């Protein structure tokens, strides 16, 4: 009897680890390219909030999940463009712009939610559907938790090797690495520094928007204003932890997904510790792993430095 319980619990932990990992991983993969190009996007948290709200609003009102996800990507991209225009073209301080976008997104989404939905938090019943992968989902024990999930979750995990390939084996990846390290040298090699940075931040915005959409339409089926709860910032930490390498970033995101799912598992298992303390675990893991692994990080040399031709 108790072993059956254990099995169910293990399965649940596995499934919720994957679901908890997905938004962080989406955001972090985008941020990996953004930071490699020399931009520090602290607006990621806000892009995720905006993505979550836009996807729910559009999806719910038009009764189309697909349009919801498209809306999230579009809103993320627009915020990315805004961030890019401010920091790349106007060369405003990246930290100020990033925090500004996050605060703006939080406030405006809460406001619009209040205006449109009042005090209601409607649920979109068609959202959050999972898809069984034929055959693989029939594997005992791990089949259901791993292969009966939302489509965006599969896509996110599959994108890891693809993005790894793009970072290290394509001209775009090479250029992104170059403009984040020594932009004037990249410029002098014939790389368009500003364009490359714009590509990176637009991609980062799309990924941030989708990360939010996964929260409101993939994992859950509703929107509440502070549902992102710092996942954008955790994603930024994960990028640093993973040293700007998509594969290592993936492992880092998995660690946080796991510690998040553990918090609920510990509560379900009835561990006699204050629930407040249990809720703290993911954040403690953040601090602990940073202390252990990220002590010697080689930041991209031009991170946060705007590029202007002729100013060495």
């Amino acid at each position, binding site marked *: 009897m108790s072993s059956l319980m254990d099995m169910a619990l293990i399965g649940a932990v596995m499934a919720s680890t994957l679901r908890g990992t997905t938004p962080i991983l989406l955001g972090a993969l985008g941020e990996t390219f953004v930071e490699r190009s020399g931009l520090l996007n602290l607006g990621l948290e806000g892009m995720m909030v905006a993505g979550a709200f836009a996807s729910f609003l559009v999806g719910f009102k038009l009764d189309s999940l697909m349009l919801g996800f498209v809306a999230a990507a579009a809103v993320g991209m627009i915020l990315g463009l805004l961030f890019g225009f401010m920091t790349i073209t106007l060369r405003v301080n990246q930290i100020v712009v990033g925090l500004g976008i996050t605060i703006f997104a939080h406030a405006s989404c809460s406001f619009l939610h209040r205006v449109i939905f009042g005090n209601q938090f409607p649920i979109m019943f068609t959202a959050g559907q999972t898809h069984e992968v034929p055959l693989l989902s029939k594997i005992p024990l791990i089949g259901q938790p791993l292969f009966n999930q939302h489509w965006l979750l599969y896509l996110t995990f599959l994108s890891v090797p693809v993005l790894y390939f793009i970072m290290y084996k*394509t*001209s775009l990846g*090479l*250029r992104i*690495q170059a403009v984040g*390290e020594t932009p004037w*040298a990249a*410029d002098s090699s*014939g*790389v368009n520094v500003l364009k490359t940075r714009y590509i990176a931040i637009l991609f980062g915005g799309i990924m941030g928007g989708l990360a939010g959409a996964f929260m409101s339409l993939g994992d859950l089926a509703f929107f509440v204003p502070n549902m992102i709860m710092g996942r954008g910032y955790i994603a930024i930490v994960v990028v640093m932890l993973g040293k700007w390498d998509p594969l290592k970033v993936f492992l880092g995101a998995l660690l946080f997904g796991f510690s998040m799912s553990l918090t609920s598992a510990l509560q379900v298992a009835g561990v006699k510790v204050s629930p407040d303390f249990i809720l703290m675990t993911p954040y403690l893991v953040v601090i602990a792993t940073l202390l252990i692994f990220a002590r010697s990080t080689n930041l991209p040399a031009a991170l946060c430095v705007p590029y202007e031709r002729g100013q060495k």
Partner: protein
Amino acid sequence: MNVPPLIKTAGITKSFPGVLANDHIDFDLFPGEVHTLLGENGAGKTTLMNILYGLYQPDEGHIEVCGQKTRIRSPYDSLKLGIGMVHQHFALIPNLSVLENLVLGFEGGFILNMKDAEKKLKRISEEYGQAIDPHELIQNLSVGERQRTEIIKTLFRGSEALILDEPTSVLTPIEAEELFQTITTLKNAGKGVVLITHKLNEALAISDRISILSLGRKIAELNGDELRSMDEKDATEKILNIMFGGKPIPECSLVEKTISDQVVLKLEDVEVMNSRGVVGLNKVSFEIRGGEIFGIAGVDGNGQKSLCEAIGGQRELVSGRIRFRGEDISRKSVSKRHEMGISYITDDRMNEGCVLDLSLAENAILRGYCQPPYSRFNIIDNTVVDRFANKLIMDFDVKATGPYVRTGTLSGGNIQKFILARGLSTEPGLIICSKPTYGLDARTVNYIQELLLEESKQGTSVLLITSEMDELINCSDRIGVLFNGKIMAILDKCDATPEKIGKLMLGIEE
């Protein structure tokens, strides 16, 4: 010649706030020739080349490439037209491999094809005799190898015209020799080479034509063969006459001076770790007396930086002792040592020596900003500061429009003069001078060497770290040779010869 020039500029004019950097410059380069640009710091050589390379846009004038009038809006345009530039500060990404740096910007497809790139590199290596490991990261290469990578990079992109910006300033004599062979190979292969330099002997040795710039204007174009047919001394004289309008460069004066018996600085078995945690100085002992110039020779990276920082106070001693005027200063802070009269003039003038974004006046008081007379009750007294900065500018002939200009707008030579002025203004007992004339033109070099000699005559001790053999032998009273963090030998001025020092620098003992 019937072939159109590879590059031709007509009436190029470019001004920056307060300076006319290029004033109607006509310049051309034909295939298979070396055309050298000579001129003082701030004469406009680098500006002209940056215009050709698309980094700046000219205010007036136009550029022709192979007879076609074109506009060059970016380095990409320039590279497409077959113009390649080897920068003084290499335009390479340190954490990428050689091959990745070669293809960057012209990858030829979304997915990188490193196999083809490697084949192409091999072909170029064989054709021009330039070997390099394609998979090594740039950060692991020596300066000479990085420069070779830059040259290969221009060939890799099929450049017909190569611009080399002060290529030998970072090289050891042997590496420079190899570079000249490379330039000759390139020339024989029909490429055009623009060489920017302010070393006359280099210009004389290799150029087909020499153009001389001064204050943004082209003031002469000389024929290399004609100059070589003259006596070397006459040729040098002729160029200097044109460059400096007949003002003779004073010879380094060798006036007798008295060195006092008082030991000013004494190092006893000093050991420090360098920034990579390896032994930087290995039981170094020597002493400098009042009014003495103690030269330090050595190939870059053999402990010079550690030595400066150990004495200046930025680097902690592992063991040993440093005494200044008899007092043990091993544990004293940087500012304390500075107060006691030790002035450290770094070789990294752009980063460590001053803050480029601040004005000259602000830089002038970086050290003493919170003390009278510059500030009272922690409020900076601008009139005093301006007067002080103005005095430095006037006394040391710094070319600047006033104490308010942003330091970054000055040329390297003028920044160095200003830093020296500041370092000497406190009337220190000991000056640590690291490569004080690195990258400067002949006249400024002379000025600075004179200044140091003058200081030593007045009783100041000088620790002079330099990689220029002439400077070392002309200025120093005694010379210590550093190799691998160890003093190999200390030579007296009278028995120091370049051969002897050269051997010791490479760790060969007699």
